[in-house]
């Protein structure tokens, strides 16, 4: 899977200042279509990522992603626009919408989120070959990430796929930078253990 132009654009656009974001949100609150479009381009893939690691079904993940933005449209008028940390605050807000939607989704499907890693750690590999020796596809990697806890997933995704600093991640997740550093440590260690198991599942594309 090659990084598309769209993804590149989104990545570039992701570098938005707090002031820009504040202006964008004010326009969005007036139901300015172009403002919403910009927000969509900025966040659609991020939200999809967040959803996809937790939902097995791809179609459902896409639908849920679209739904997040419709929810944003419904609630935007109540969003309090500030100048400070606007990007991080809005990101957290959008992830919270996604989180709530996921909760509803699980509830509807009578499904449970993928069991947290800690419950599966005992299921260790009998193979002593590392993932490096075995080789590792992106799909296997994403599948392994999908087995992490939600916080671990978010930290890894933000740090490695969205090129965010620990400080920025801390703002979005509402934690201290120290907590984020510890979290990313645990996340990498957990991912390493998962990849050390026999055969990672490969159902994520």
């Amino acid at each position, binding site marked *: *899977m*090659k*990084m*598309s132009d*769209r*993804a590149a654009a989104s990545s570039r656009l992701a570098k938005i200042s707090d002031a820009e974001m504040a202006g964008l949100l*004010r326009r969005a*609150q*007036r*139901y*300015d*279509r172009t403002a*919403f*479009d910009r927000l*969509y*381009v900025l966040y*659609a*893939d991020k939200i*999809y*990522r967040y959803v*996809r*690691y937790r939902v097995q079904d791809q179609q459902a993940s*896409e639908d849920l*992603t*679209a739904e997040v*933005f*419709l929810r944003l*449209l419904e609630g935007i*008028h*109540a969003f309090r626009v500030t100048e400070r940390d606007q990007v991080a605050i809005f990101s957290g807000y959008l992830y919270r919408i996604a989180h709530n939607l996921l909760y509803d989704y699980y509830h509807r499907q009578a499904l449970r989120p993928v069991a947290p890693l800690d419950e599966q750690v005992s299921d260790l590999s009998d193979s002593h070959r*590392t993932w*490096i020796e075995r080789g*590792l596809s*992106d799909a296997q*990697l*994403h599948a392994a990430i999908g087995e992490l806890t939600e916080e671990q997933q978010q930290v*890894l*995704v933000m*740090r*490695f*796929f*969205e*090129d965010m*600093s*620990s400080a920025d991640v801390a703002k979005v997740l509402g934690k201290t930078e*120290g907590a984020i*550093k*510890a979290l*990313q*440590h645990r996340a*990498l*260690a957990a*991912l*390493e253990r998962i*990849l050390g198991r026999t055969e990672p599942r490969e159902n*994520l594309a």
Partner: protein
Amino acid sequence: MTLDAVLDECLQAIRSGASVEACLARYPDYAEELEPLLHLAARLHVAEPLALSSSAHAAGRHKLGAAVEARAAATEAWAGPAELLRRRVQTWLRLPQVRPLPRLALAFEVVILVAIVGAAIFALAAGSLPDQPLYPIKRVAESIRVALTPDVPGKAQLHLTLADRRLAEAEILLRQQGRVDESLLADWNAELRAALAAIDQVPEQVAFRELLALFDARVGAQQALLETLLVQTGDVRHERLLAASRTAAAYRQLVVEAANDPTRVGAWLQGTPLPMLTPAVDLQSPTPTPTPTPSSTVTASATATPSPSASPARPPLQPVLAPTETAPPTAGVRPTARGVARAPTETPLAPGPPTETPRSRPTEVLEPTATREVRPTPRPGETERPKPTAAPPTPRPTEEPEPTPEPEPTERPEPTHEPEATKTRKPDDG
């Protein structure tokens, strides 16, 4: 430096292009733990992130755009011209934009809030006293109420209510601060006069008499209150209370006269510019307390009369009452008029006190009220009094149409009061 921090630093370095090996060399103490993590991090860096398929991305984008359009249209339609105007003005003035929905909701809330606060203020003001900040609001609210009352009888009753209020305020001030507020009494008097003026405008005789009876009852109650206060307070405040009490008596006397001749009210209103009696009279007045006329009798008279009056216009009243004229020369005549039957007994009493005669004009008017014999007020001094004629109860003939109104006389057979009321009071005051 903790492992967490070292790891973070290495991750930052790798992201900037450094190799895993360089990092491990830099932190040899942590190398063993760091190595697998850093290799994994390097792998993650080159992984292609999950992303929406192009079609899904486009579909979601389109869906959102359509929803935004629909929402904008709905908001626009709902906002209406006022909202559009506001937006335009906002643009002109370059005011910061605010969400339309909450703004309108805010305006609504402000209106509600103002209404609630206003109601609360008026409610608070209603219980205020003249020396309190909200009192002017209370008075303004009252005058608005008067102005908004369309019918004459309603106005008359409202004025009576307001007269009650003024007197109640005066009483509270008196009890709380020990002072008699002259302006309140003047206002009280003005309300009574306004009530009377309103009553005078009522064309129908029945309604007129009913209102007159109501007026008499209210003034009677007010007079009783004044009497009570008079008994309970010291001499200094006496003057004004006494004057007020006399004023009440004068009003009630007028009601009696009006019962015979409805035109009296109008004439009185014209001829008596300042109904309040001058307090000057009081100086001598330690004695005077003619006012005590029992209200009951008066009301009775007023109510009683209506029966004969079938005619729409107000004709001169029944001559029936007239006989009283025969009674003794002094003012006593008037009072007798009300209770015909009682007349005989009363006459002797009224003239009794010598002090009354010297009084000035106003006081004379009151004299009729000399009927004080009836005075209900229970005084300790009463007993001393020799009762000249206990007659009052007995004479009461059955003919009287008004049995109800006069409970007092019947109850108390003791005409003891008649002797100088003043004297009785004196002990109290002292």
